[in-house]
Structures are given as C-alpha cells and as structure tokens.
C-alpha cells in the first residue's frame, strides 16, 4: 500500500528525513547514488550513475552481463571505491554505514561457513557485529527452516542454504539489503518460490533493497522500481516504476501491468535503438540517463 505513491513521489527528491519516516518501517534507510562512475584500469565499468532510492523501497537493477550492475552494488556496499561520485545511506557515506553495520549483503552463492551449522552461522553474524537483537532461532523458523537449524551446509538443499544465507545476511538487522543475483544459482522452481518468499519476508521486515538480477520477470515481480542499465560502461537507461502493492503473488505475472513492464524492459534491453526513440511508454518515467542525471543534480 505504502508503495503505491512511489512513482509520483520519486520525481521530487525532497527532504530525505521525511521520506525515511513516511517511506518505510523501522530499520531501513534511503540510498543516494550521486555521479558515481568506476574504472578498473583501462576497463570502464560504470559510466555516471545517479539514483535515489527511498527508504523501504525495493529497487531492481537489470542489464546485460558486464554492464556494471554488480560493480554498482559493490560500490553501495563500500566493497569497491568509485572512481568518482559518492554514495550515501541515509545521511551517512556508504563507508560509515558499513562501519555502523547498517548494510547487509546477500551473495549469489551462499556465503555460509562450511563448518558451521545453520543456527551457528546466523549467530556468527551476530557475534561478529555485536548486534544480536534478532532471535536467530525464530528467524530460521520463520524462514521455513524449522528442524534444520542443526544441519551443516552440505546437508541442506540449495534453496534452504540460500535462506540460511539470507538469515545470516540480515541477522544483524541492517537498514539496507544489497542482493547480488541471490537466486541465480537455483533451479527455476526454487527460484520462483524463493522470490515469492522474499517478497513476503520483506513485508514483515521492511528493508531498503537494491537487487541485482538478470531475470526480468523476477525484477518486475519483486521490485517497486526497475532500473534498466545500458551495456558497459553502464548507465541508467530507464527507471521504470511498478505501481502495484507488494508483496505480490504468482498471479501478478498475468497482470496487464506486469506484461507491459516486462515487454518494455525487453524492448530496452534487446532492441535498444528503437527503444531509445520511443520513450514514454506505460510504466516508464521516460527519463533516459542524461535527463535523469541532470534532473537529479
């Protein structure tokens, strides 16, 4: 419900503190990416990216492989330093937010320790960060892992392991959740199940989410906004709002909005020259990268 107005409110960046209060529940913060670009030696990974993400919203990044979407996520995570520009979480620079343990990272492969049982792995996050307000046992139970708390990673299925990974990633109760193709190593059915599960879990524990994926369907099913990126060096090609209530269910796939938005994204990704001239379709805010960048500055 609270996400319905997102498409309209976005155009006015406005006072961030107010957005923090209105946009989300406890434990989430806005992300502001300003003029961020990145080069690795001679590789131009990321062109200039400007992006404001409201507290509590779910933003998906899609784009061709190698377009720098993972680099952008890693810059927000303060794991990579941008060549230019800056990222703020709430009012603090990304580095400060990381040091304050306000960031959570869900990786493509589970980052669980192979010698720890599921529950120990979740507790490990809490011990390392010294933030143990969330009940680890109950988290695992809520995540459908009741009876599996004592299992070693190799005794769990891929889907279960990714849920343990998720529990460990948010066990220190971060404000911002950064997810890097978290479901891409899973089979199609597990992937869809976990997508639905993630949506429901986030409804109970609101976080600001930046979600990198190469699955267009997944992005549209889960996100409030889908950022379509250009091939390398990546820049924002389109910023598409999906004004539908979260969490969404499987039947959202047959919703006209879903169909229109996925078609629009496909057009942008696979048929770029034509798409560039035909801005302003349903669901799109019709801002190409240059315009968006100027508008935000």
């Amino acid at each position, binding site marked *: 419900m609270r996400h319905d107005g997102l498409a309209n409110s976005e155009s006015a960046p406005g006072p961030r503190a107010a957005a923090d209060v209105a946009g989300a529940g406890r434990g989430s913060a806005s992300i502001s990416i300003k003029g961020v670009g990145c080069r690795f030696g001679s590789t131009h990974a990321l062109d200039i990216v400007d992006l404001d993400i409201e507290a509590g919203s779910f933003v998906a990044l899609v784009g061709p492989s190698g377009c720098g979407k993972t680099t952008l996520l890693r810059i927000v*995570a*303060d*794991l990579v330093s941008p060549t230019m520009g800056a990222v703020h979480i709430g009012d603090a620079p990304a580095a400060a937010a*990381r*040091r304050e*343990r306000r*960031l*959570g*990272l869900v*990786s*493509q*492969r*589970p*980052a669980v*320790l*192979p*010698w720890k049982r599921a529950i120990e792995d979740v507790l*490990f*996050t809490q011990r*390392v*960060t010294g933030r143990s307000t969330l009940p680890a046992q109950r988290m695992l139970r809520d995540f459908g892992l009741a009876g599996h708390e004592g299992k*070693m990673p*190799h*005794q769990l299925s891929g889907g279960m392991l990714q849920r343990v990974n998720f529990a*460990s*990633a948010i066990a*220190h109760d971060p404000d911002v959740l*950064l997810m890097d193709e978290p479901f891409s190593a899973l089979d199609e059915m597990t992937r869809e199940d976990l997508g639905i599960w993630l949506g429901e879990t986030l409804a109970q524990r609101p976080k600001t989410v930046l979600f990198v994926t190469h699955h267009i369907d997944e992005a549209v099913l889960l996100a409030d906004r889908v950022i379509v990126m250009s091939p390398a060096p990546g820049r924002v090609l389109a910023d598409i709002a999906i004004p539908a209530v979260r969490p969404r269910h499987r039947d959202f796939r047959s919703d006209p909005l879903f169909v229109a938005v996925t078609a629009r994204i496909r057009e942008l990704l696979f048929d770029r020259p034509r798409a560039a001239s035909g801005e302003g379709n349903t669901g799109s805010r019709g801002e190409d990268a240059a315009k968006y960048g100027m508008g935000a500055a």
Partner: protein
Amino acid sequence: MNDIAAFKPSAVAPRFGASVVRILRGSLVMATPVLSILALWYAAIAVSGLPEFVIPRPTQVLAALVEDRVFIATHLLETLKSAGLGFLLANAIGIGLAMLFVAAPPFQRIVMPAAITLRNIPYVALASVLVLAFGDGLPSKILIVALAGFFPVLVNTHRGLLAVDPIIIDRMRILDARPWDVFLKVRLPFSLPYILAAQEIVGSGSIIVSIAAEWLTSTQGLGYVINRAMSQYRGDQVYAVALLAALLSFAVYSLIQVLGARLDWSARRPAGAGSNAK
C-alpha cells in the same frame, strides 16, 4: 510374535557371518605385506650370499631389538625429543611466516627468497654450520629438523589462508569484522585442511631428518646408534633401528591422520557414511 521369532535369526546370522568374513579378510590384508616382505628378505639372503652383518635374518633383528632394548630406548627417547621439538618449531615458523605474509604481503617478497634458498642448501652443509655454532647437542638437531620442515608448512598454510572463498571475505567486510576475527574465525579454519596436509609430510619427516642429523654429528639418538653399530659390524642393530624408525614414522603419520580427520571440517562430509550394508 511368530513372525519376529522367525525373522530374527535370519536377520542377525548373515550379519554376524559377514562380520567374521570381514575380520578374516581384514587380517589377511594386514598379513599379506608382512609375509611378502619376510619372503623377499629370506630370498635376498639366499640369493645375494651377503654376510650376516649386511643382511641379518629377521629373527636376529628381533633378537637385537629385545636384547638391546634399554640402550635403544634411551636413544629413541633422544630422537623423539629432537624430532618432536623440531616439528613444533617447524610449525611455529611455518604458520607464523604464513600469517605474516597474509597480514603484510610485502614481507612475502622479502622473506620468501631467503626461505627458498634455505630450503635448497644441502642439509649436510646446514648441519655442519649449526653444529659449529651450537655444538652437537639437542639445539642443533632441533634447528635442523625445523629448517627441514618449516617450508612445507609455510607453503601449505599460506595457500590455505588465501584459499578462503572471496564471497565469505565479502561477508566479513560488509559486517565490518575485526581483522583478528577474519583471521581466527575464517582464514584459519579454511586453511586447516592445508595445514593438516603439511603435517602428514612434516610429522614423519621430522623423525627421519632427526635420525639423519644424529647420524651426521651427534653422540646420541637412533642415528648415532646406527653409526656405532656399523662400526662394530652390528647389522642386526642397524636393522632393528631402521625397523623402529619406520614403525615410528608410520605411527606418527597415522596419528596425524586420525587427529586430522577429527579436526578437518572438509573431511566431515558423509562420504563413507554407509557402514552397514553387506
């Protein structure tokens, strides 16, 4: 009731029979190498025609082992002392340097050439210098064992410390974990299989190097016993010591394997879980 009574013997008897067969098969597997070695030994005596002090009969060797047990045990203890302490020192140096390399990579470029040079100097030369510096007592022997053993520990531990899945290092960074936590709770457990693999080489190697060092310079230890026995044409004693040293090395290797299996998380996967079946 009737069913259970009828079921019981048929279920238990084959399993009991199977275990007897397994024990028999196991002892046969154990006995075969011993028997074949003994056969080869006697064949060598018969064919070569060498005198007894070069190839004594196995019974003479066992007799020497029993008769000179106090003498041999005294020197065995000495060898164990230098091998054990040298082994510990090798690990301290190897693991310590590996930690240093990971914490401060520039040190790798400074220390590694020296380590490789040290590794490639003939131990005989090294031993001679050490004896000149420290005398022919325990300290030189410990140092020789340590110098021979630290390199595999260093290389393996270093590789292990760097073998951590980068995704887990990302996790530790995003959690802003203290460097000490990263080392102690992530890197060290990850490198444990590598460190254990090095122990298998260095553990039994320490005993062999220790004996060699004693043979070269010392007046104590099993190496010295071999030296003395040769000068007295006591081939039986030389073989007795060789047998003892081989058994010792094998015992150390097995001990490390058993301890390793308990410590090594990567070996704890259910590969050989099916212990029943036929």
